[in-house]
């Protein structure tokens, strides 16, 4: 009975009969309706949601995450929105308001009290949408489907480090997916597996349903370092992939010129890359990628090496080409560590955790293009991503492999400097001890990549806690942030020795040695079992940095030895004498 209703709804959706679909849905359970809606493209969601009775809309909307709820509400006129919000279950409404970031909440309050003008970015509900996708879009066949892909890297010492935990992921046509994650989390590794550059250690990558090895997908990659050949001219660089396809010289030149033209590099055909600025080099990278007319365009942090303005320019030009369908590419897979970039460009955002990488969130961004950073919806998404990224990873429950005890994770030090931590806490103190993370990032002009480790470090040291994307200072943090520079050291030392496993281990190992000295190699070996080589070096660097600042030990870089600091020595000597 319920099943047949469900099928009927699907059929009506495929006929694009929104009116009837909305009616049919009203007979279903609200949570089921929410599930169904989430699988549809956003325009269709709007079409249906716009036709729900106010009562029913109020019951459905509570089942969506707050950011989704926010944009869905805005797909109704101001009157209807007010009516729906009125009818939402009181507890749900409270939670929704709570979760909204400051600006969005303020904006919504204004709207609800009728003071604000209609929202400038609000998409108008169209009575009949243009037929965009053929057939029922709920069952669009993905271009790429990753099934339980997993990646191990073999260390020189034979240890195998899991970089990507078994992961499922699909890339549908006509979408831009942004893959977000802290650096070193495995974004590039995932991109390499999806594009066919490397094969997964286990699991499968399917292209149009066939294993990647059997198909020969036409893909292109835009690299962070541009990866141009410096000895070839701009034109020859763009031609090189075409020559690899066996294309004749004349056709090649023509296509290259066309591609260069579309990225605004006309007239630079005979220049060498080193004569160009960074932004222009990346334009060549784009031209080279577009010239092969790839089915999927992969981009690995394409804007990271550019300055802010150049990056912004290039991003908007890319979006223009994409929105105007001037590029033959079906889908774009963008790797980035910039949250705003992801929300600006992507139809879908995937957030990756680290060590090993796991998908922590995978959601649509329901804001029409072109997007504005100042829009309230934009802030809602940015805030949400901060929340996801700062949520402790242990909170997310994963089924462990049966028969295999889950490996206990070694505590991982975030790569932050003591000075940075102090600065952050000071600012937090000034802000009354509690603040939204994206506000802090804005204030400090820090990229997420710098900010998150600093935040994590403050949390690890017990100086602050996180709550739903807000950072809250603890009494210890307050003391540390307010202390003079010389008074900060002992506070840091105490916090480090209470909370940081590696530093505790280092100290007790040094304590036990009669000469209170140990080669660094000793600790490197300990870490080798848990981290990749690159990560081990970073862990060591951070531990040295913190340990020296906290005056736990000194480091002799010539012999690569750690020596217990005088502080520790005299303490010990005194207790021995006493």
């Amino acid at each position: 009975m319920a099943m047949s209703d469900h099928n009927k709804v699907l059929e009506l959706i495929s006929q694009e009969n929104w009116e009837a679909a909305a009616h049919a849905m009203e007979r279903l359970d609200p949570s089921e309706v929410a599930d169904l809606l989430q699988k549809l493209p956003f325009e269709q969601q709007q079409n249906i949601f716009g036709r729900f009775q106010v009562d029913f809309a109020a019951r459905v909307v509570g089942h969506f995450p707050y950011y989704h709820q926010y944009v869905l509400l805005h797909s109704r006129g101001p009157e209807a929105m007010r009516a729906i919000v009125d009818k939402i279950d009181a507890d749900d409404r409270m939670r929704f308001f709570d979760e909204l970031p400051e600006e969005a909440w303020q904006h919504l309050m204004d709207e609800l009290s009728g003071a604000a003008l209609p929202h400038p970015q609000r998409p108008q509900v169209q009575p009949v949408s243009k037929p965009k996708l053929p057939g029922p879009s709920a069952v669009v066949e993905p271009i790429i489907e990753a099934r339980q892909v997993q990646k191990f890297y073999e260390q020189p010492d034979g240890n195998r480090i899991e970089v990507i935990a078994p992961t499922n992921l699909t890339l549908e046509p006509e979408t831009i997916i942004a893959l977000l994650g802290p650096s070193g989390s495995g974004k590039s590794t995932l991109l390499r597996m999806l594009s066919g550059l490397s094969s997964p250690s286990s699991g499968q990558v399917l292209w149009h349903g066939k294993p990647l090895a059997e198909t020969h997908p036409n893909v292109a990659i835009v690299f962070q370092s541009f990866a141009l050949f410096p000895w070839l001219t701009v034109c020859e660089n763009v031609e090189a992939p075409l020559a690899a396809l066996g294309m004749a010289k004349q056709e090649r030149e023509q296509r290259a010129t066309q591609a260069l033209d579309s990225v605004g590099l006309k007239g630079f055909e005979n220049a060498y890359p080193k004569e160009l600025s960074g932004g222009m080099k990346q334009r060549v990278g784009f031209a080279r990628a577009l010239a092969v007319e790839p089915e999927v365009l992969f981009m690995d942090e394409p804007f990271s090496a550019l300055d802010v303005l150049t990056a912004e320019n290039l991003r908007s030009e890319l979006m223009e080409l994409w929105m105007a369908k001037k590029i033959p590419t079906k889908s774009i897979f963008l790797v980035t560590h910039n949250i705003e970039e992801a929300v600006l460009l992507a139809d879908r955002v995937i957030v990756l955790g680290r060590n090993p990488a796991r998908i922590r969130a995978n959601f649509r961004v329901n804001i029409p293009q072109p997007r504005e950073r100042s829009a309230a919806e934009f802030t809602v998404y940015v805030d949400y991503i901060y929340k996801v990224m700062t949520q402790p990873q242990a909170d997310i429950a994963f089924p462990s492999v049966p028969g295999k005890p889950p490996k206990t994770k070694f505590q991982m030090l975030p790569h932050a400097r003591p000075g940075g931590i102090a600065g952050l806490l000071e600012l937090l103190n000034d802000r009354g001890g509690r603040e939204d993370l994206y506000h802090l990032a804005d204030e400090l002009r820090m990229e997420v990549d710098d900010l998150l480790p600093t935040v994590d470090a403050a949390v690890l040291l017990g100086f602050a806690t996180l709550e739903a994307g807000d950072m809250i200072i603890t009494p210890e943090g307050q003391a540390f942030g307010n202390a003079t520079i010389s008074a900060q050291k002992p506070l840091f030392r105490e916090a480090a020795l209470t909370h940081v496993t590696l530093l505790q281990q280092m100290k007790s190992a040094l304590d036990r040695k009669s000469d209170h000295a140990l080669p660094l190699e000793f600790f490197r070996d300990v870490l080798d079992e848990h981290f990749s080589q690159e990560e081990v070096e970073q862990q060591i660097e951070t531990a040295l940095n913190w340990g020296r600042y906290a005056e736990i030990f000194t480091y002799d870089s010539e012999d690569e030895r750690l020596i217990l600091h005088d502080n520790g020595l005299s303490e010990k000597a005194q207790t021995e004498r006493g």
Partner: protein
Amino acid sequence: MPEQTNTRSGAPPWGIFPAGSSLLRDLPIVFAGLAVFYGIISFAHYGIGPMNTEAEIQLAPSALPKYALFSVIRIAAAYALSLAFTFVYGYIAAYNKRAEKLMIPLLDTLQSIPVLSFLPGVMVAMVSLFPTRQLGVELGSILLIFTGQVWNMTFSFYSSLKSIPREMREAAKIYHFSWFQRFIQMELPYASIGLIWNSMMSVAGGWFFLMACEMFVLGDRDLRLPGLGSYLQTAANEGNTRAILAGLATMILVIVLMDQLIWRPVIAWSQKFKVEQVEAVETPTSPILDLLRRSHLLSLASSWTTVPAREAFMQHFARMHKERRKAGKHSAVIWYLIGATCAGALAYGVVRMLRMVAGVSWPEWRAIFIGAGATFLRVEFVLLVAALWTVPVGIYIGLRPRLSAIAQPIAQIAASVPATALFPIILLLLIRLGGGLGIGALVLLLLGTQWYILFNVIAGASAIPTDLKEVCQIFKLSKGERWRKLFLPAVFPFLVTGFVTASGGAWNASIVAEYFHFHGETISTVGLGAVISDATNRGNFDMLLAATIVMALMVVTINRLVWRRLYALASTKYKLET
């Protein structure tokens, strides 16, 4: 840059047939082409003639051009062989992980085996291959020169391949470059600068051992090949000072000509392969290269030959690559077979070698070890003396840009003149002054090795950043302090690099320095080099093998124990980051 577009200009090739003035400009190129052609013909004519291993070497100056030509052709042939070997060996070692583990230590060992130890084996093999033709001995001589040239080139190529940036390699892979395209558009250009510098060093090394490679005693046979080396050797034997000087002058002339006509243009041309982000202010130039670039004849010839040939190759390999991709990976069985065969042959060789060494008697071992000790002391003493004068002089020159602009080319020519050629004169002088080969060997080693150190020190001193020099002035450091605190630490890494090259070179050179034919008699001094030379002359293969192994082991051990550690220290602690 306009001259590079020549080949691409729209006009048909016959429309730009050289006009009067440009024909004049092309004349030198035409003549050069004819001369090369004549040289090859006459060498081939001589090569397929019947065996005449005891050619009478005429000391008349009129014979010199012919001899010089023959030597140049020999060195060129050996160089071509080295290049081919380099590509194959470097390629396999860089891309096959399993082979790499065996091939790189093997290369390291081969590199430390002195050239002349290869002599008997190579000669016996070649003469038995072509028992009646001159070709056999010729090939043997070429192979000998090859063994002196090839190893550092191979190392350079291998390490260049290994250091190609990951993203650049990935670009070539994702765009399906064929093997050929990858080689000419990525690997060869990337490796070219290192390869060219090492080629220069190798060819200079070829001149150093030329005398030994063109004239030698093998058991009861006295083999000599017409060439500059044998001319000098004969002149030395007869004590004919005038002939020695004439031969020397010819050799210097040939070296200078090669430098101007070949290396300089090649270096200037190779600047476009520099992997740098911005354009350098000063780049090497060469009038010869300008001449070649301006030549209509050449650009015409290349637009008819190399350009279409390259295009055809590219297309062909692109098609093959596509088919291969479609067909899937072909089996690795062949490679396993080849690998297993090589490993088997190697193992067999090691067993044979050990059995041969077992036949060396106790007194012979004693002689080898005493010789090894003597040569060790000699080499270290020479390095010390060389450092004592080159460090202050090198720093003095390097700190004064104008002076180093004059000194560099002079030092370069001085370095490329083989000390072996000067040796007869020095020996004559020493004998007149009452010294013997004991001092003579020291002088010869010094002449052969000090230049490497001098070059490197000059380079190091001129790389000291100006701001550091200014800091010294601001703090009014005394002269002694300046040397201790800035100059010496700054040139240290360069000094170590110079030492590594000089040390290996000195061990090798000891073979010619400690044992000499002079005035029809043999003079020698205690040393491992003398043991090796003597064993070669007497055809005592067991002893030769044992002594060679000892020398190779010593060189490898010293490299590992001393130079590599100093190198690591230099590249971490004393690196001046700019």
